[in-house]
């Protein structure tokens, strides 16, 4: 009942985006994918969600994802993309409902519950296009959440696949969203999130996959992956990992050599 990618390759034209990536995420855990810009995080995410078909194999709960119909995949996992445009003036409630009704599911009380979960209760009647970027991102998360509302169903765990879920959020809502993701995992679902904020990742992720140049550099718990040498090499700058008594580890950029 896991999400496993084995030795996958993706190339765009002549450029190799992913070369030989193997990846594993377990239900009940929040797995974060981190790495510098252009390291292939989003491409890996697109492969894991079935949006692109790479060379190699990807299985979800034991089934090859290329053998699953779009409907079956949509029942098993919800996908939050980095950016989602909306072309007509739908209300917030209508946007959340689209995800359910695409598969003939009755929205019922799910819409308000999903909106409350992302701290948007009271926004249902607003026009989506008039919201701020961060609010729009949370509406999209509510839509994805409503699509796979129960973390586990009789056929097994469900998955939340989140590409930079907190990139345009304020610090309070970053925590709201990451706690929501962590809670989804606690309740038995699987969560895979592409992250940029290493400290937030260290705080809430169960497992981390560090990528660089289209390959997996290391994977394990945050404490295992986040080392001075490993991070500094991956990101190409001096980073120092500190131990903080209560919350574990904290990563600081080193300013030595830079002018004050």
């Amino acid at each position, binding site marked *: 009942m896991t999400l496993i990618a084995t030795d996958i390759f993706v190339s765009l034209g002549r450029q190799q985006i992913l070369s030989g990536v193997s990846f594993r995420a377990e239900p009940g855990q929040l797995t974060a994918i981190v790495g510098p810009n252009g390291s292939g995080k989003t491409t890996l995410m697109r492969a894991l969600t079935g949006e692109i078909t790479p060379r190699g194999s990807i299985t979800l709960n034991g089934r090859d994802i290329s053998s699953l119909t779009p409907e079956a995949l949509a029942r098993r996992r919800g996908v939050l993309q980095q950016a989602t*445009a909306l072309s*007509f003036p739908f209300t917030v*409630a*209508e946007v959340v409902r*689209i995800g359910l009704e695409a*598969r003939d599911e009755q929205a019922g009380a799910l819409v*308000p519950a999903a909106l409350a979960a992302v701290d948007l209760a009271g926004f249902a*009647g607003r026009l989506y296009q008039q919201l701020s970027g961060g609010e729009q991102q949370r509406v999209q998360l509510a839509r994805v959440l409503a699509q796979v509302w129960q973390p586990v169903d009789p056929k097994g765990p469900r998955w939340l696949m989140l590409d930079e879920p907190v990139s345009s959020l304020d610090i309070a809502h970053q925590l709201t969203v990451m706690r929501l993701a962590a809670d989804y995992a606690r309740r038995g679902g699987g969560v895979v999130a592409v992250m940029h904020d290493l400290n937030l990742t260290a705080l809430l992720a169960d497992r981390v996959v560090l990528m660089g140049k289209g390959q997996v550099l290391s994977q394990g718990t945050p404490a295992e992956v986040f080392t001075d040498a490993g991070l500094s090499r991956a990101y190409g700058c001096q980073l120092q990992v500190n131990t903080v008594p209560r919350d574990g580890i904290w990563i600081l950029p080193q300013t030595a050599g830079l002018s004050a």
Partner: protein
Amino acid sequence: MVALCPDMPRLDGDRRHLARRLGLLLAATLVLVSVISLGWGASGTSLPRALADLLAGRELAVQDRVVLMDIRVPRLLMGMLVGASLAVSGALLQGLFRNPLADPGIVGVSSGASLGAILAIVWGGMLPVGLAGAFGWYQVPLAAFAGSWITTTLLYRVATRQGRTSVATMLLAGIALGAIFSALAGLMILRANDSQLRDLTFWGLGSLAGANWPKLAAAAPVMILALASAPLLARGLNALALGEAAAGHMGIRVQRVKSRAILTVAAATGAAVAVSGGIGFVGIVVPHLLRLASGPDHRWLLVNSALLGAIMLLLADMVSRTLIAPAELPIGIVTAMIGGPFFLWILLRNRGVLDL
């Protein structure tokens, strides 16, 4: 739970009840407008007298029978179907291209249908007798369907790259395709004989004047089929509003939705253009008004577009029959007079998204 407690406040942002009520209102209005339209006209036919005769089981007066059954009823049905088809085509194209400025007339789909129809009219006479006989009245609608299908497919290929449609490219490609088709149509018209020429001119401006039962029998089934199947695409188009990738993630078979939408537009526009020529702007005005009134949810937008499109075309037809009576103004002129300024207004409202 909500259904059990009718007093419970409806969830904010849910506009389905509005759309439903609007649909009922439009259906009632369509009935009313249809009756008025039947009684509307220059001849001395009296609709009340004819109805009284019908209800009493009496033979209709000869004049009533001719005017009503041979002229006004087929014209009424044709007007309704053409209006509904053009409006639904507009709504489908807008959903497919993900922007509110697509319209069969503006992006060249109607020109493609016209070219097909003109080819059929001018060359139709040259077909071997047997073949021409086999297609008969279907020749022109079929050719128009082929023309609009090819145009829509081409347009989609040109304007969309990796699932993203550029509004500017779509509009400009529409202009280019329209220009090519008009040029080819012009070439064909030069080869037409006098009687074909008269047909073509009137038809090119858009008119319901030629409505008769055989034409209706050929085009109506296509339009009815397209109109009836359009709502099946509603959920797919709703999801597509969030982008192709997002729609796919939600379980929509995106390619299938797109190719069916193109086919439906081609059938509806092709059949409508074949029988009524270049009636423009219905497809852009109707869905836009409905989105303002009850939101963009395609499940209601498509149904209500059919109703409002039918109403608008019947009203425009009444104007075209009376404005310069006893002569008749081609209905395409009436819709363009109203639709042109309306299109400009939408452009002004959407200047931000256009980014030309």
